[in-house]
């Protein structure tokens, strides 16, 4: 497609496991992520890949509103409660996907939840999976699963036994040591790690003394979590030698470069969309490109983990 040619730029192309992306920017799970028409639009606007909203076996309504609170200064608190249309309905949504590099985020409580879902998606035009083991605000899904090493192992083995597509495991900062969870994921056969998810947090309205989120506690995203994300990406990629996708508070090309220097092969954008809309993708990619040119680098992958040697 002609209109996309400006986004086909070898200097920005990155490979992560068996994936090859035209640039390192990826839509983070849970943002804008339920409509194929929106995915197509994101691709027209220059996204490198898209991660869908986390999908479960059955449709989920999620929590009552308020589910998203804007905290200002580039940060949000959310407890959406993993609302999603369910695997059956969502597989029909993306059946028409032609050109968008689409990663399906999956969430579940036990290994037996995952096989039926993978069977619904594996024959479609999708490029991989991201297993969400890190949603910090839904019991028995996400983070609580991530805290159970045996379950993490079984889930990954189950998906890998059926699918040849790359599998990423999304980890977060919670009760378990993030490196330990990533290690288990790697040992079980994961192709990469996405770090990090939101971090458990809360906000209270001082006029009413009431928590604002209907679930009271939610997950913090945006600028305040960036440096935690950088630390996690650095430690995981350095210790585990596994491809890492960085996420958390990326608002500028400088943030993206910092994540890559820490060891990320690509970066996900979420909260920034609330401030800039989907223009953020092309703005950040062109910033990375200029930086690479200024530094005399031939490809974005040369940035990955450069900070490890110091």
């Amino acid at each position, binding site marked *: 497609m002609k209109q996309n040619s400006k986004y086909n730029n070898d200097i920005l192309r990155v490979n992560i496991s068996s994936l090859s992306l035209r640039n390192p920017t990826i839509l983070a799970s849970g943002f804008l992520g339920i409509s194929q028409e*929106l995915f197509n639009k994101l691709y027209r606007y220059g996204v490198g890949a898209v991660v869908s909203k986390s999908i479960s076996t059955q449709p989920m309504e999620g929590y*009552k509103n308020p589910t998203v609170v804007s905290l200002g200064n580039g940060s949000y608190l959310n407890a*959406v409660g993993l609302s999603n249309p369910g695997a059956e309905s969502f597989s029909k949504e993306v059946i028409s996907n032609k050109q968008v590099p689409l990663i399906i985020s999956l969430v579940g409580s036990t290994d037996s939840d995952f096989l039926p879902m993978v069977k619904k998606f594996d024959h479609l035009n999708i490029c991989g999976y991201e297993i969400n083991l890190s949603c910090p605000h839904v019991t028995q899904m996400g983070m609580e699963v991530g805290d159970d090493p045996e379950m993490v192992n079984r889930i990954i083995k189950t998906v890998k036994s059926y699918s040849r597509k790359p599998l990423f495991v999304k980890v977060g900062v919670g009760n378990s040591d993030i490196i330990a969870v990533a290690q288990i994921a790697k040992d079980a056969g994961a192709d990469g790690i996405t770090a990090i998810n939101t971090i458990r947090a809360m906000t209270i309205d001082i006029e009413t003394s009431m928590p604002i989120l209907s679930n009271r506690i939610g997950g913090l995203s945006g600028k305040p979590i960036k440096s935690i994300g950088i630390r996690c990406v650095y430690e995981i990629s350095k210790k585990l030698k596994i491809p890492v996708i960085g996420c958390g508070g990326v608002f500028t090309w400088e943030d993206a470069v910092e994540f890559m220097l820490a060891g990320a092969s690509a970066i996900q954008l979420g909260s920034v969309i609330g401030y800039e809309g989907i223009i953020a993708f092309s703005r950040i990619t062109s910033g990375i490109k200029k930086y690479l040119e200024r530094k005399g680098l031939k490809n974005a992958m040369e940035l990955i983990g450069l900070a490890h040697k110091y």
Partner: protein
Amino acid sequence: MHINIDHIRIVNIDNIIEETPSIRTLIFRDKLSSNAHPGQFLMVWIPRVEELPLSVMISDKKMHAAITIRKGGFGSTALFNKKVGEIIGIRGPYGNHFTIIKNMKKALLIGGGTGLVPLMRLATKMNEFGINSTFVMGARSKTEVFFEKQANRFLKNTKHKVIVTTDDGSYGFKGSATDTLATIIKEEKFDRVYTCGPELMMKKVFALASEYSVSVEASLERYMKCGIGICGSCCVGEQLVCKEGTVFNEKDLRLMTEFGRIYRDKTGRKSHIVDYN
């Protein structure tokens, strides 16, 4: 002091108007909402109960605005039952708004139910700009007619007509609002048709206006969580109703294959729209 419109502002309910047995207008003081553009909405927090997107209604009192709520499910009923002196939280106003064409002479406003709310604020603009307006209001029956007097009052400085239709004929013209539109759009030339209400009604309005080559703006409703363009729950195809809408013109509507057809529920699943009376 700079106010971040995304932060919840706690407001006191100063007054309540009973519009019909199931519809009430709650008035509160809030400068930002009092200056809202027609078609914009607020996210209204009913503490520890719900948060709902609601159009900004106009209030006669300076620095005040209002919301007009129809009692239905859990959240809307809790809001409907609020008393004077109780508090709610608001954030916004959000979304784009209805627009007026340069040198506009004649407008047609058509809506039903709480879809009339954004049209009321628009009516005051018509008055301000001296644009002649015909306002068609649809209701099921006489007991559900509201805002007729206010509309006449808001449009008092211009040449205007307020036409009420009821499905059962118990008040005004018998039939639907779009039946009336079909008659008058044949006889009179309008610069633009503005509509808000049940989506299948708006779809008919759009079809009729297109037939007579009249420009249209329609305000759409979708399930909203964030109201600020991040969650994607309000999407119609590739558009976000909370951000790129709620008001769409004939060019947008023509490209929206889901307009008048598909609504996504809380889970994001698609269902067919069957909401017309």
